[in-house]
C-alpha cells in the first residue's frame, strides 16, 4: 500500500512538471539565418530564413521543386518584437537554436551593435556558435534570398564559403558570436567580422531558376574583413590586408602568396605550415612579428632559372620582402587611418607585462600603439618546386 502511494506520487511528479518545453517538429520553424537591418525611421527590419520542411505530396524521398528555405521579413522597435511577430506570416513559432548565421547590415554596423550583442547574449533561445557576417553594400534580405547552387541552403552556403576561405586562402576567418562578444568585452581588443556582398540581379536571384543555369543571375561573394572601433563599423580591409591580418593572428592555415619578381612578372607560392610569433618589448616599445612559413612553388611567370640553387634563395628573399612589406603597410594603415587595434597588440602587451602596460596606457592613452615600433621578419622556406624544374619554353 505504501509502495502504491509512492508510485502514484512519483507518477504525479511526471504529470505536474511533464511536457514543459514540449514541441513537436511539426510545430517549429527551423531558423537557419537572421539578417538585421534598420529602416529609415529607426525600426529594426529583420529577415528570417526558415528551412522548408514540408514534405512533397506522395513521394517522400525527393525534395523536388520545393524551395529549400522561406524568407520572412518583419519589423519592430526591438529585435525580440520583430522576431516574435514573424508569427503573423508564419504558422509556426521560430526555433532559433539551429541558427547558423547572423547577417548585420552595414547601416546597423555603422550605428553600433551594442544593443544587438546584448540581445543575443541575453536570449537563451540562441546558441552562441553562429557566425556573424557584415553584409557589405547590400541589404541582408537581398543576400539571404539568393538561391545558391551546390549548397541550396543560402545560410549554409555562406558559412561553408567562409570556412573554406579561412582554411585555404586566409582572407576571412571564422568568427562566431561568442568570439565577437569576447573581443568586444575585452577593452584591449576590437571586433573584426567577415563580410559578404550581393552580386547581380535582385529580382531574378530569389527564384529557384537561379540555380538552373550555369551562370546564376545573382550570387553571394565573400568579402574581406570589416573592422570595428568599439561598437561601430569603421571600414573594410582589402584582400591583401585581410590576409596580412590573418598572418599576424596566426590564423593562416593554407594560403597563396603572389609576389613581384625583381625583373618583371610575378610568381605564386602556396604557403603551408605557417607559424607567427609575436613578441613585445615594452621597455624599448617594440613589437616583433616573426613569421615562419614553408611554401611550395605553384606558378612562375617570370624569367627565373630554377636549376640554379641561388634562385631559390632569391625567391625566398623576394617573398619575405613582399610579406614583410604587406604586413608593415597594413599595421601602418590601420593605426594611422582607423586608430583601432584589431590585431590584439594591446592584449599582447598586457599579457607580457601588465604593470608597464598600465603605466604606458596612462601615459599615452589612445595613442599607445603609435609610439611602438613594429619589426616584421618573415622567414619563408621553399620546400618544393613542383613537378617540373625548368620553365616550359620552346
Amino acid at each position, binding site marked *: 500500500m505504501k509502495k502504491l502511494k509512492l508510485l502514484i506520487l512519483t507518477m504525479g511528479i511526471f504529470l505536474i512538471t*511533464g511536457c514543459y518545453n514540449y*514541441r513537436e517538429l511539426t510545430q517549429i520553424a527551423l531558423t537557419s539565418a537572421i539578417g538585421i537591418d534598420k529602416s529609415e525611421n529607426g525600426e529594426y527590419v529583420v529577415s528570417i530564413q526558415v528551412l522548408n520542411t514540408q514534405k512533397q505530396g506522395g513521394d517522400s524521398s525527393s525534395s523536388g521543386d520545393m524551395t529549400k528555405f522561406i524568407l520572412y521579413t518583419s519589423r519592430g522597435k526591438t529585435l525580440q518584437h520583430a522576431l516574435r511577430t514573424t508569427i503573423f506570416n508564419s504558422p509556426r513559432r521560430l526555433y532559433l537554436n539551429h541558427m547558423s548565421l547572423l547577417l548585420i547590415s552595414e547601416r546597423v554596423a555603422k550605428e553600433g551593435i551594442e544593443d544587438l550583442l546584448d540581445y543575443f547574449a541575453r536570449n537563451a533561445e540562441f546558441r552562441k556558435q553562429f557566425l556573424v557576417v557584415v553584409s557589405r553594400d547590400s541589404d541582408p534580405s537581398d543576400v539571404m534570398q539568393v538561391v545558391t547552387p551546390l549548397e541550396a541552403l543560402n545560410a549554409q552556403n555562406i558559412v561553408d564559403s567562409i570556412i573554406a576561405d579561412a582554411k585555404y586562402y586566409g582572407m576571412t576567418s571564422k568568427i562566431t558570436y561568442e568570439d565577437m562578444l569576447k573581443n568586444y568585452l575585452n577593452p584591449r581588443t576590437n571586433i573584426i567580422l567577415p563580410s559578404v556582398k550581393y552580386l547581380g540581379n535582385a529580382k531574378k536571384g530569389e527564384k529557384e531558376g537561379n540555380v538552373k543555369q550555369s551562370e546564376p543571375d545573382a550570387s553571394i561573394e565573400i568579402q574581406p574583413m570589416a573592422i570595428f572601433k568599439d561598437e561601430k563599423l569603421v571600414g573594410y580591409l582589402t584582400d591583401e590586408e585581410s590576409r596580412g591580418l590573418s598572418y599576424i593572428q596566426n590564423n593562416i592555415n593554407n594560403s597563396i602568396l603572389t609576389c613581384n619578381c625583381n625583373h618583371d612578372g610575378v610568381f605564386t607560392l602556396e604557403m603551408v605550415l605557417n607559424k607567427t610569433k609575436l613578441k613585445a618589448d615594452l621597455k624599448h616599445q617594440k613589437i616583433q612579428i616573426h613569421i615562419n612559413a614553408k611554401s611550395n612553388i605553384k606558378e612562375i611567370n617570370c624569367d627565373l632559372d630554377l636549376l640554379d640553387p641561388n634562385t631559390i634563395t632569391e625567391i625566398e628573399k623576394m617573398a619575405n620582402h613582399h610579406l614583410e612589406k604587406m604586413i608593415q603597410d597594413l599595421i601602418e594603415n590601420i593605426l594611422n587611418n582607423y586608430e583601432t587595434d584589431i590585431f590584439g597588440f594591446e592584449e599582447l602587451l598586457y599579457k607580457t607585462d601588465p604593470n608597464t602596460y598600465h603605466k604606458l596606457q596612462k601615459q599615452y592613452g589612445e595613442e599607445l600603439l603609435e609610439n611602438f615600433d613594429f619589426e616584421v621578419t618573415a622567414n619563408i622556406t621553399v620546400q618544393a618546386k613542383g613537378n617540373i624544374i625548368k620553365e616550359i619554353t620552346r
Partner: protein
Amino acid sequence: MLENVEQIVQKIKEETNNLDDIIYRKKIIKKKKVYIIYNEPLTSSDKISDFIVRSLNHIEQEKFSTKNLFEIVENDISNFKVKKINTYQDVCLYLHKGFTIILIDGESEALALETKANISRGINAPDTESTVRGAKDAFVEDYQINLGLIKKRIKTNDLWIKSLNIGKYTATQIGVLSIHGVVKEELVNQVMKQLKQIDIYGIIDSGMIKNLIEKETKSLFPTIITTERPDVVSKALLEGKVAIVVDNSPYVLIIPGVLNDFFKTMEDMYGKGSNVTFTRILKFLSFIIALFTPAVYIALITYNQEMIPTDLLANFATQRDGVPFPAFFEGFIMIISFEILRESDLRVPSFSGSALSIVGALILGEAAVNAGIVSPIMIIIIAITAISSLPFTEYELINALRWYRILFMLGAAFLGIVGVFAVAIFFFIRMCTLESFGKPYLMPFAPTIFSSLKNSIVKFPIKSLKKRQPYLSDNRIKERSKSK
C-alpha cells in the same frame, strides 16, 4: 502391509476405477499367489515377457522351499534394477513410473522391476540456442537421457546429484547437480531448501520450478538461466554453478544467472578471444540500442531538438511533416504492432509464418508510411530496436527489455532527455539491487571482480582464465590434472 495380495489388487482396482491399462497377471508358484502388475502404456511388454515372466517360469521349475520364495525371486529375476518396496504408496508410485511390481502373497515386501518403455524422442539439435560451432545435441524430455548427456561430459565422482520428487499428482523427478569441491555448499543447500518448500499439485516443466524458486519475483530480468544445451550446463557446473534437471522438460535450469551470463554463448569458449570480444561488444551495444533508441529519439525530436545536427533535424522534420500523431504515440503504435507481429509469428504454424512476416513487416510498414500515419524514420527506429533485441537467446531477457523500453519512452514523452535519464537512474539502481541467489546481478562489473573481468565484455585467451568467480566458488583456481 503387503501380506494380503488379493486385498491390494482389489484396492488398486478400486482406486483406479478398474482402469484397463493396468494389467494384473496372477501366477501360482509353489502354491503361492504371485501377482505381476504393470501399467501398460508406460512399460515395455517385450521386457516383461522376455525377462520377468520367463524368469518366473524358470523359478517355478526349480526346487526350493516356499519359505524363501521372495529371496529366490529377488535374486534370480533377470532384471538389473530391482527395488524392494514395502508400502502401498510405493507400489502405486512405482506402478505409475513404469515399473513392474511383483507381489507375493504373505510377504511384507514387494519387488519393483524396471521395465520402462522408451517413450521419448531422440536427441535432436537445439532449437533455441543455435551455434555455428559446438556440440549439436540438446536435452530431451527424458530425465535419464538428460542426466546422461551431462554425465557423458563430466566424468568424475565429484558430480553429485541430489534428487527429489515434487508435485502431488505428477511426482516429477527433480535432480540438483553440482560438482562437489567446486560449488559453494551453501548454494546447493539454499536451492534444496527452496525446492523442498515447494508444495504444488504438479510440475509440468522446469519453467514452473524456475518461477517457484526464483526469489526476485518482481524483477523483470531473469535470474535463472534456462538452457537446452548440455555443454552449457557442463560449463556452468565446472564454474561452480548448480543445475536443476527436471523430468519431462528439455530445459535445464542453471543457478545463479547474472546479467553477464546472458551475453555469453557457448561458442565464446571456442572462438578466438579478440573475435569473441567483438561479438560481445556488439551484444552490449544492441542491449543499449534495444533499451534506449526509441526513447532517445522521442526525447530528441520533441524536447531537445538542439542536440541534433541541423541537417539531420531538417531531414527528420521533413519526414515528420504530415504525420498527425505526437512522436510518442507514433512510436507506441509501432512498438505494439511489432510485438503483436512477433507474438503471432511465434504461435502460427511454421508453414504460414513467413507469409505473415512479409505481410506484417513489409506491407504494413510501407503502407503506413505512404498513408502518412507514421514517418519512415520511426520505422527505422523500431526496426533497429527490434533487431537489437534478438541476439539474446534468453527469451525472458528480451521480454524484460521491452517493458523497460516502454518505460524509457514514457520518461522521454514527459520530460525529454531528462526523463530518459531519470528512468535510467531508476533502471540502474534496480539492476544493482538485484540478486540471483545471493549473487549480485551486475557482477563482475559491480562489484568489480578484476579476475572475472577477463571474461566479461572482453575475453582473454582461455589460458589466462585461471580463476573462478569468488561468488561462485571457494576453490578459485581452476585446477588441471597435470598440476596435481
